[in-house]
């Protein structure tokens, strides 16, 4: 917590009405899904369907957490009193500490939201005896994906001034990650977060996928720093 950017962002997000509304919306969606998913669906394909209910909950959680975390980082959702990296670069902060602070704030936000959603996932998973290790693995993947997409959003927020273009690029890249990767041949297709969550739940996701998203996040981190330095040049 020695990073002043991180401290400031966490304080801003804790007090933000928008973040409050996002959390209520997120928990509301997860709560309704968890509650509606309680009655078993008996039928010919019931085994497959009931197994996927927890997975469905995790996928929804991944989409919401990833979108909101990256949208906040890209300033598509402007959090009250939270300064953008470009604003901070003219304050006495180095690009390195700005990017590190923003990066950690995104990670903390994604982790916090995952923690808030954990009881609802636990209800769905506990009733179906889903593996706890699988849930932890899937949760870790969601956190890594959300953080790396947040890093991407941060870079977009720094690199693209136009709000419309930035939003377009943000949505386009999110669609590319969540939908476009489905067009990849196997085994590259496993980088798709939806498929990855299902595989992680089964304990079958290769560590390379986690590493890929971490590397992508670090690359965005480096790109954001370089772009910020241009403002100082």
């Amino acid at each position, binding site marked *: 917590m020695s990073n002043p950017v991180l401290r400031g962002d*966490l*304080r801003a*997000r*804790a*007090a*933000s009405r928008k973040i*409050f509304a996002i*959390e*209520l919306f997120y*928990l*509301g969606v997860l*709560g309704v899904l*968890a*509650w509606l998913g*309680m*009655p*078993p*669906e*008996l*039928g*010919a394909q*019931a*085994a497959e369907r*009931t*197994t996927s209910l927890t997975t469905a909950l995790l996928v929804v959680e991944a989409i919401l957490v990833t979108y909101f975390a990256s949208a906040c980082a890209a300033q598509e959702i402007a959090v009250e009193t939270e300064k953008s990296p470009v604003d901070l670069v003219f304050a006495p902060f180095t690009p390195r500490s700005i990017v590190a602070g923003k990066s950690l704030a995104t990670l903390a936000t994604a982790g*916090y939201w995952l*923690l*808030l959603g*954990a*009881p*609802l996932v*636990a*209800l*769905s*998973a*506990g*009733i*179906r*005896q889903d593996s706890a290790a699988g849930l932890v693995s899937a949760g870790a993947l969601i956190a890594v994906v959300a953080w790396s997409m947040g890093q991407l959003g941060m870079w977009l927020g720094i690199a693209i001034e136009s709000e419309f273009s930035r939003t377009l690029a943000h949505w386009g890249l999110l669609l590319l990650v969540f939908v476009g990767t489905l067009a990849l041949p196997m085994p590259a297709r496993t980088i798709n977060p939806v498929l990855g969550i299902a595989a992680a739940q089964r304990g079958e996701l290769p560590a390379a996928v986690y590493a890929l998203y971490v590397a992508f996040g670090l690359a965005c981190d480096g790109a954001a720093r370089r772009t910020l330095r241009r403002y100082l040049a």
Partner: protein
Amino acid sequence: MAAAPLRNSGAGARARPIGRALALSLALCAAAGPPAAAQAPLAVAVGFDGAVRPGAPAPLDVQTPPMPAGGPAEIVVETAALVPQTGRATVSTVVPFQAVAGAVERVRVPVVIQDVRRPVRVRLMLGGRVIARAEVPLDPARIAGRLVVLVSQVRAGLGALRRVDERAVDAYVTPDALPARWQEYTGVDLLVLRDLDPSRLGEAQRTALLTWVRLGGRLVVIARPGMPLPAFLLPILPAHLEGAYALTSPADLAARFGGVVPAGPIPAVALVPQPGADVARAAGVPVVAGAAEGDGHVSVWGIDPTVPPLAEWAGRARLWAAALGAPAPAFVDASVLAERLNPRAPADRFSHVAAGFLIALYVAGLAVLRRRRPTPAGAAAGAAVAALAVAVFVTLAVGARARSTALTQVAVLEQASGAPVARALIVAAAAVPYGGSVEVAAPPGAVAAPVTMTGDLRLRWRDETAVLDGVVRPDVSWVFQALTAVPLRTSARFGPGGRTLTADLDRAGLRDAAVWWHGLVYPLGDLPAGRTARRVPDTGWRRAADAVADDQSPARFFRAPESQAPGAIAQLPRPVLVGEWSGPAPMFALPQRLRAGRAGQDVVLVVPIAGPAPRVVQP
């Protein structure tokens, strides 16, 4: 299927031979087993002298090598079973024991072998590590349609059985190999005791033998000159011995069983039959006496057709045929009982409402907290609330699962005729709407096995109780059965003329009671506990086919497999009294934590009716 295993701790020093089958299996294991097994061989004997009957409980005897160390150990026996849709599944029977360093352990584990094409695999685990293993293939020639077991020092004498029934398989065993659980005899059609030293039988083995006979087993005791009959069998034997003598020309024996009796002298023992026994004489002397005992049949032979000169006698085939009898039809079929259970496991409404309330409370609580404290400390408090909520929601999930678990079961008690024991077949169906693993404890002392396999099954013994552990699918209930004997003394008898039925129902009454006789059913209504008499006129009888169609009547459990017609109950040679019993009966149980689940159970009692047959006017 498996009954409580018997262990003989530290049996190395006093280990007794357990028959040729054990040696044969040891050789097979040594030859076929992997290197680990070669280093530490497990001696495994399956069935009676290697003979098994598919689907019936068979004894499995495992003798370990000297244990390399002490500590918690277990024997794991894996048998293959066929599963619809998914192919094969494995039933693992696990017998835990406390190993003592240097000691040899002997474990008896009754198992049911469904898929005889697959070998039986046995592992010895110590501290979670496999220290020995064996793989015992089953000899196709030893898969019995009908199984005759001879306890004898001589491995010969049953050759004539093939002429009696080509499906018959003979097995020669020593007294040590006799089961200590009556259920292990289930696959045996005839047990012949020739050289039985009673001192080599334990109390459990004696009780098992007596119980099996009273519940329908067929036993022949061959009396040999100069050797007394086993004392523990005297209460059920239809004759006692008078003295040895030599037969010379037993024409009456030939007249009764056919063939030319070889020239004498033939060593024989004269019998003194009990009243009512069916007697065959040789030269005017009783040498064969047979009588029913409970639902079974016991014979004493004063002649020995397993050794010369009578081993060459052609008439011995009829003697064996009479002893073997006709195969008894299964009174009730476990698969039919399973069909009639119709378990339903809807989601528990209380859990659903509670979950909705708690979800709303959680979201609203977080909203209030974050609204009142819009600071990082408030967020931290929210995180603490979420962590607490995880514990609450997991508890709710476990409770919802338990409350949605349904265990539906039926126990059919068949009172043995004139014996204070009843055979109890319990069939239960467990349904969990969410699928997943289920654990069910069989009644203490019962033999338990799956009726329908939905996947791999683990059967773990805890003292005298088998705990079945398997994974159920959400759309398929898991059906299993248990076989046990319960002490019960009920009786029924028709008075002279077959018009008045007197029943003694012991301590509990019978609901929806009815007399079944030759495909017809006479409804009696409810009968009270104790002695009661009812008039049974020759009119008012229903067709059994109509009775079994009634889903509210206990008759629904007596349909033929995959049919709407009545099953074997319609062909019984004697009338029976059937009704819903309100007395205690052995049942499967869910573990303590799942006791909140729904449980439905029926107990059907079947009492054979003695005396003259009723008079019936066909409906």
